[in-house]
């Protein structure tokens, strides 16, 4: 009995522009929002959309990510009929040892895994986007249109469009052209890197693409253009909600700040139906001291606040000493801010100690990253 749909999360990349933050973890494992890791978002979306077989494709620093994903327990994906399988690049019988050469190649190398579950549809996701999305609705659209491939798109401003892969569509929503970062965009529908393929179609194109020595083995650059060339039915599925690709230190900081501004991403799940699941660490409740001042902030359990915190996101185990000021900043797990220090507009990486009376970005210029690792 095959599954209707299997999700494959591409989680192999480093994300070099996140500098020191990815020195020893893959980008999808980067901390976000006071408690989460980025990959919690696609995994929770899968769980909430009723998708219960998820492959997580890893390559760069896969140990922490693999252990974190584990058997999928954190997202309720460890049932008798559900699975979160970590799929590292590996040595295979009759093939030998091969790394993943591109997004399409990574899926190609796991055709065996897909065949085992023999799904009708495959959902391809990135492990490093922050958003809440009901993939089931997208699947409904895909089935209704009888599409070969459905691509989730976001309507961006014309100014931004040049930074994205743009889908040029007909009035009926079919895609007639894909423009990777066009100088003069013809449309503002940006690909979110979220695809639903009818599996047997995808399978054919992956096998063809693997034979093509000139191919970059990439979905955007190769698979989609090849399908368009063959007049396959490609549809754009417009997504209307919060979505962020946190590619840089700056954008990671922004995405954290967005949580304070009550944009569409509702971690507090006011509607009670779309929780984001994550690891719950062992910690005492946060303690707020007599002289503390906290406002407009998100603070996780295990923190100890005796100074002033405003407009900031504090992960578990952070300490802010007396007289210290933390403003508009993101403090990763275990950061220790000693008495009298001032931190403004910064990301402080896991475990960093900001010694007494230090000043970090006191003038609140460009976002600053402080880390024990080298970038």
């Amino acid at each position, binding site marked *: 009995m095959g599954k209707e749909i299997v999700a494959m999360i591409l989680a192999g990349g480093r994300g070099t522009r996140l500098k020191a933050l990815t020195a020893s973890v893959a980008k999808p494992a980067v901390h976000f929002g*006071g408690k989460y890791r980025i990959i919690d978002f696609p995994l929770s979306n899968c769980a909430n959309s009723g998708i219960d077989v998820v492959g997580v494709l890893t390559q760069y620093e896969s140990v922490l990510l693999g252990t974190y994903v584990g058997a999928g327990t954190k997202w309720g994906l460890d049932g008798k009929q559900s699975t979160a399988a970590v799929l590292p690049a590996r040595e295979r019988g009759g093939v030998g040892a091969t790394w993943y050469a591109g997004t399409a190649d990574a899926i190609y190398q796991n055709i065996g895994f897909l065949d085992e579950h023999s799904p009708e549809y495959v959902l391809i996701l990135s492990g490093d986007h922050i958003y809440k999305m009901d993939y089931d609705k997208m699947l409904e659209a895909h089935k209704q249109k009888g599409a070969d491939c459905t691509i989730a798109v976001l309507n961006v401003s014309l100014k931004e469009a040049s930074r994205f892969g743009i889908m040029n569509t007909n009035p009926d929503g079919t895609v007639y052209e894909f423009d990777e970062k066009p100088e003069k965009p013809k449309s503002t529908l940006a690909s979110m890197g979220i695809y639903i393929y009818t599996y047997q179609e995808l399978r054919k194109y992956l096998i063809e693409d693997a034979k093509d020595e000139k191919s970059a083995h990439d979905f955007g650059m190769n698979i989609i253009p090849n399908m368009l060339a063959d007049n396959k039915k490609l549809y754009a599925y417009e997504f209307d909600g919060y979505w962020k690709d946190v590619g840089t230190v700056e954008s990671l900081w922004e995405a954290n700040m967005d949580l304070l501004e009550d944009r569409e991403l509702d*971690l507090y799940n006011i509607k009670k139906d779309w929780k984001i699941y994550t690891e719950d660490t062992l910690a005492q409740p946060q303690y707020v001291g007599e002289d503390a001042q906290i*406002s407009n902030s998100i603070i996780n359990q295990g923190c100890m606040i005796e100074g002033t915190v405003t407009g900031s996101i504090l992960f578990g185990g952070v300490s802010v000493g007396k007289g210290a000021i933390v403003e508009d900043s993101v403090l990763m797990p275990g950061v220790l801010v000693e008495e009298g220090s001032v931190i403004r507009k910064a990301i402080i990486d896991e475990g960093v100690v900001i010694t007494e009376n230090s000043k970090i970005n006191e003038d609140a210029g460009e976002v600053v990253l402080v880390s024990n690792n080298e970038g």
Partner: protein
Amino acid sequence: MAKVIGIVNLHTTTSFDGLTERRPSASVSFLGRYALIDFVLSNMSNSNIDSVGVLIQEKPRSLFKHLGGGDSWNFNSKAGGISFLYNEKYANNKKYNHDLNNLEENIHIIESVNAKYVVIAPAHILTTMNYDDMITAHEKTGARITVAYQHINNGGETFIGAQTLKVEDGIIKSFAANKGVNNECDVSLETYVINKDALCDIIRDAKKASSFFKLKDALAYYASEKKINAYEYRGYARYVDSLENYYKVSLEFLNLDISSAVFKSNWPIYTLTNDTPPAKYLKDASVKKSFIANGALINGTVENSIIGRDVEIGTGAIVKNSIIFTGAKIAEGAVVVNTIMDKRSQVKIQKDLIGDPQTPLYVKEGDVV
């Protein structure tokens, strides 16, 4: 180390009034994140005990929900695990529903584990005791039974009704009840290391003296004729036997000298985890000297209080010297002082709740006031 069985003994007469109407005291929420039973379970886990039985006296539902498979306390190794010991035969018979009968009813579970010692400890006496140290002391003396005690100098105020004991040369000569007459006394922590065979003897023999004998009665009875070893524990210990004491012991944790004696980095307090986002402080929040659990949404003033998971405190509301349980809501502008609000209760209409500093006001689970 010889293998050890841990027994959490929930047979007790403690009652926290409304808080224990539908749950045993062991399940009562503590510091916004824990249940009282988490302390003794964490002590067992941290003392490397991996087979634990919970002697349930009554109202098992909330316990089953909280304890689940024991995963949260690290008891899910294949070698160990958590067992629920519940005496269905006598569940409805107050006099017979005691710890020794419960142990007898479930004796095959104790017998099936290949252990030398049994550690028995209650949930309503909070400690961070390392039972491993106590077992080492027990082994050295060669006694079959060791009882942990603490020397206190405020026996007129606390441990009232608990057992006091008279120790000579490390041996317990007699037990008595603490009637609150002497401040200086040695009180039993109701925590025992007993050789497994000795425990089986007690279970079998105690009813020859009286069928109503509980374990502590049996030990008091034996103290004159058998050698019961005393083990002094000098760490954190609190006796939580009433709503007033529960309130007092909870708020005492806001004093960092006390809470840091409990929250030690090498002695984690485990509990059931929840998928709750971090606490969020809105623009008008003002919080001082308080514990805040995850999921709380705060836009008012909080002082000297314990705020549980998913609590909402509206704009301009004031909460002082209070304990607010999971999911409770305090409307804009309300004032809540010296109050315990149980799960999912709400302050909506009557916006001034002012309790007595000694005897807090209590708002029932789910009630709207």
